[in-house]
């Protein structure tokens, strides 16, 4: 796969990273790791099972559901 390089190429990842960190709980290394894996796998499997246009809805939906269930993230001490 080839990517073009541009100053704004990091923008989507900034948002994803912030979401993953919040999902895992601020200050928790394990949380970020598990949160990142969880979101990535759910996104990929979900897209395979349903359709690619659901990708964003799926990841934001999972993120909001988890935070409503555990308001301080998954692994906040």
């Amino acid at each position, binding site marked *: 796969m080839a990517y073009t390089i541009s100053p704004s190429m990091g923008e989507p990842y900034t948002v994803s990273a*912030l*979401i993953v960190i*919040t999902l895992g709980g*601020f200050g928790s290394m394990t949380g970020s790791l598990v949160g990142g894996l969880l979101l990535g796998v759910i996104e990929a499997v979900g897209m395979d099972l349903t359709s690619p*246009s*659901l990708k*964003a*809805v799926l990841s*934001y*939906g999972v*993120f*909001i559901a988890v*935070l*409503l269930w555990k*308001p*301080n*993230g998954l692994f906040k001490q």
Partner: protein
Amino acid sequence: MKRDLLVLLALVGWALALPRYASEFVVSLALTCLMYTALATSWSLFCGTTRYLSLATAAFFGIGAYTGALLLQQAGWVGTIALAAALSALVALVMGAAVLHLRGTYFAVLTFGMAELIRHAITLWEKRVTGTVGRLIAVVPEADTVYVTVLVLAAAAVLTSIVVRASRFGLAMAGIGADEQRAETLGVDTRWVKIGGFAITAAFAGAVGAAMSVRWTYIDPATVFNPFIGFQTVLIALVGGAATLWGPLIAAVVFSLLAETLRLQAPQVYMMALGLLLIACVLYLPGGLASLRWRWRWPEWRKGVA
């Protein structure tokens, strides 16, 4: 409070007379100023005083714009604006009930996530169910009507701010911003105060969205739910001074002028200026642009303003 009302009256009178003698470009520039004034003032009404940083403005703006596009033909102009405000407030009630117990970064990121979820859900809905991408707005009211509407909304936002600041409700919000637990101990029903404040903010954003959507004549989720609308509102309020009454208005004018003069000639310089201005304000002027003058000249005014 009396002085604030007089200043508001003078500003509204001046803005009302503007289309009579200014060129079309100046009027459209003033419209942008008014739009950001309404958004930033209503945002800081709740988020500035309680320090709940909401990034969901884009969602309410978009909901308003879509309401406008779908209902303009049936409901008439004023009815559409009112419906858009009501619908946005309703969404804010539900959203606020779910997330307003979270504080700080969690609240900010979650409101951003919800705004994005709404945007993608509507995109998906359009793709799957209605089979459209975006909406055309065929019947457009006159430019003067739009200008006066947005002016009324901006004036209403400032007026609401003035009234709320002097009321029990406003004091409760300020108390939540200073120390939420203490406010709760002192008998403030923090839950309903927060949800109510959030709904007021959302109603204004929705109404502005509905009023501005007709300016574009073609809207799609990517434009009206653009997260940049939310970011820019927060940026303006912070640079102007989110805890002050006139700060967001001053910053909205500064930003709109900057945007119109720089964006066309040098878009990169515009973005860089935006970033530098924000960094400088956060580092050296935490009270915002509004604190400049009051700190230098009229220290006794700070009591009435801050």
